[in-house]
């Protein structure tokens, strides 16, 4: 899918094109990362232990192949990006092809996600789910905040009941719901 196939309107496509020089550094970083991964795999492959009993092809050969492939493709990509050949970012029904990347949204979504990870065992899965769903939908534009949070809580409890209670997945219900039998498989 190319952005040309999913413009929000004639005027905004030009804005998307004007955005292009701004994403040069990022794209170069990704190309260099591919090259670096290849070199890293090539170097690291040499340190893999080879037991004496191995006949012909040992555990190092395939990593060498993979490393070489990543390094070559990475080098080609670095050259392509430096010469001004950029990738076409993915389109989609909900992607505004004219919009610039909103980095704040990405960072905030990651923060909420990390908070979710660290609260699962602390306050139980349903409440950690409430934080993740409520937080993420608020960041993406749900208003008012309490409705997003309440929806998250309802969803968390329903999932806990269906998957924890009925299907027997051992999701921790948390200290608050510890004694409630329907949330535990």
């Amino acid at each position, binding site marked *: *899918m*190319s952005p040309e*196939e999913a*413009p*929000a*309107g*004639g005027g905004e496509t030009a804005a998307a094109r004007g955005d292009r020089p701004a994403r040069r550094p*990022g794209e170069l970083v*990704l*190309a260099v990362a*591919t090259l670096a*991964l*290849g070199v890293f795999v090539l170097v*690291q492959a040499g340190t*893999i*232990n*080879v*037991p004496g009993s*191995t*006949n012909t*092809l040992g*555990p190092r*050969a*395939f*990593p060498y192949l*993979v490393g070489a*492939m990543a390094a070559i*493709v990475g080098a*080609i*990509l670095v050259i392509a990006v430096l010469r001004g050949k950029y*990738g076409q970012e*993915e389109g*989609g029904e*909900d*992607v505004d092809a004219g*919009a610039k*990347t*909103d980095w704040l*949204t990405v960072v905030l*979504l*990651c923060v909420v*996600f990390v908070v*979710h*990870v*660290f609260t*699962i065992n602390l306050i139980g899965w349903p409440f950690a*789910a409430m934080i*993740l*769903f*409520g937080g*993420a*939908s*608020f960041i*993406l*534009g749900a208003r008012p905040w309490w409705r*997003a949070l309440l*929806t*998250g809580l309802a969803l968390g409890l329903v999932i806990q009941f269906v998957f924890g209670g009925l299907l027997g*997945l051992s*999701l921790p219900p948390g200290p608050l719901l510890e004694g409630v039998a329907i949330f535990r498989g």
Partner: protein
Amino acid sequence: MDNLSALLEGFATVVQPVYLLYALFGVFIGTAVGVLPGIGPAMTIALLLPLTYSLEPTAAIIVFAGIYYGGMYGGSTTSILLNTPGESSSIVTAIEGNKMARAGRGAAALATAAIGSFVAGSIATVALTFVAPVVARWAVQLGEPDYFALMVVAFITVGALLGTSVSRGLASLSLGLFLGLVGTDTLTGQQRFTFGVPNLADGINVVIVAVGLFAVGEALYVGSRLRHGPVRVIPVEKGWRTWMKRSDWKRSWKPWLRGTLIGFPVGTIPAGGADVATFLSYATERRLAGSRRDEFGRGAIEGVAGPEAANNAAASGVLVPLLTLGLPTTATAAIIIVAFQSYGIQPGPLLLQSESALVWALVASLYIGNLMLVVLNLPLVGMWVRVLQIPRHYLYAGIILFGALGSYALNFSPIDVLLLLVIGLIGFFMRRYGYPVAPMVVGMILGPMAEDRLRRSLAISQGDLSYLVTSPFAAIAYGSIIVLVGLGIWLQHRERRVSAELEKIAEGVRDAVATQEVSR
């Protein structure tokens, strides 16, 4: 004829009420998530995989079969009724179907897509029934180097063709191959790329990678450039019985059959999956349209009927190499392999013998799922329209939540959820800079299998590399890479040219709509 009796036994399994309910659940979920933008069948199966561990294999496989076909159906509804194209295989449907919907013929577009999918799905499933056993019998004779050659073909075609840029596809593939290396080497027991972390000794879980790339990565990417404001769905007239006029039937049935004829064979070879099939069908219909050619790009029913049929036929075609060779040629197929493996079943030439009951239950559930889908889809379109209108902030928050739940449920370890976020961020950057994510998933799953074949081949030949290419099949396979990639790249160029042409027409229409709205 023993295939038929095996198939009948499969039907006997599937028509048990419990399994019918599972099939219904599968097609329902599959259609719902197929309708939702941003979610494809690969992601749905990856998300549901950890949650179905408590089911027995037959039930789980039936659910997955339903999701697979349902997802294919749902996508067309989205592209016809939303004003922007969605998943790549339905792009051409989006062009013609969306034009039809704008002209007030949305119901006819939905009907020809649904009935065409049913016709194609049914014929292709029959083809699968007869082709798969033949291929499996032939595949038993293949040696280790032949399998390795097949996998190399799959790597190259998947890497080069599943995306707009060959080098980016190959970069994505090599990243996947690297992730596949992490863990303990199966043949010598040596740890590779584990960095001394005990959690990595068993390797990185494919489910986390798939969910991270498809679900979290997608949600982050869409979130970063979300189209705000209400979701505009094109209204469809009520009363589904009168949807297709006699002239619509007359114009649709040939494209359905031609689409099936194109879709199934293209699906069976590793050549880029459904995208190529839909495009070929679209180009064929345009060429054969004669005096109606002018309608193409403005809402020609043939341009919906043919590609939709091709799309579904290709989806069944993909199952042939999947079930008989254990060779995934699309991301969805790769996830289905993971699903099989999680139940201790290894797809391959022996699958039809060792797990015959399961395979035929799967095939039978495809027939039944197809029937359910056409019955469900047309009358329920009002509901799917409502699903389409889910506020996007809730939709993507929900996708993230279910992704987190799926990877947490693998081992009930928060570390897995953190790893999911890391993979999701990688997926975000890949999407942003035009790296396709599907080759990464295929590479991760197929990589270890290919390494295994390669090392066993060379163990047999005692290190003689020429053994890899001397078998006639392997030689043909390597030769076909050049042909396949050449053909694929030529097709992509054509596709781009045609869609650029169509986009010009589309922009004209959009401008006209915009001026109308302003003047109002």
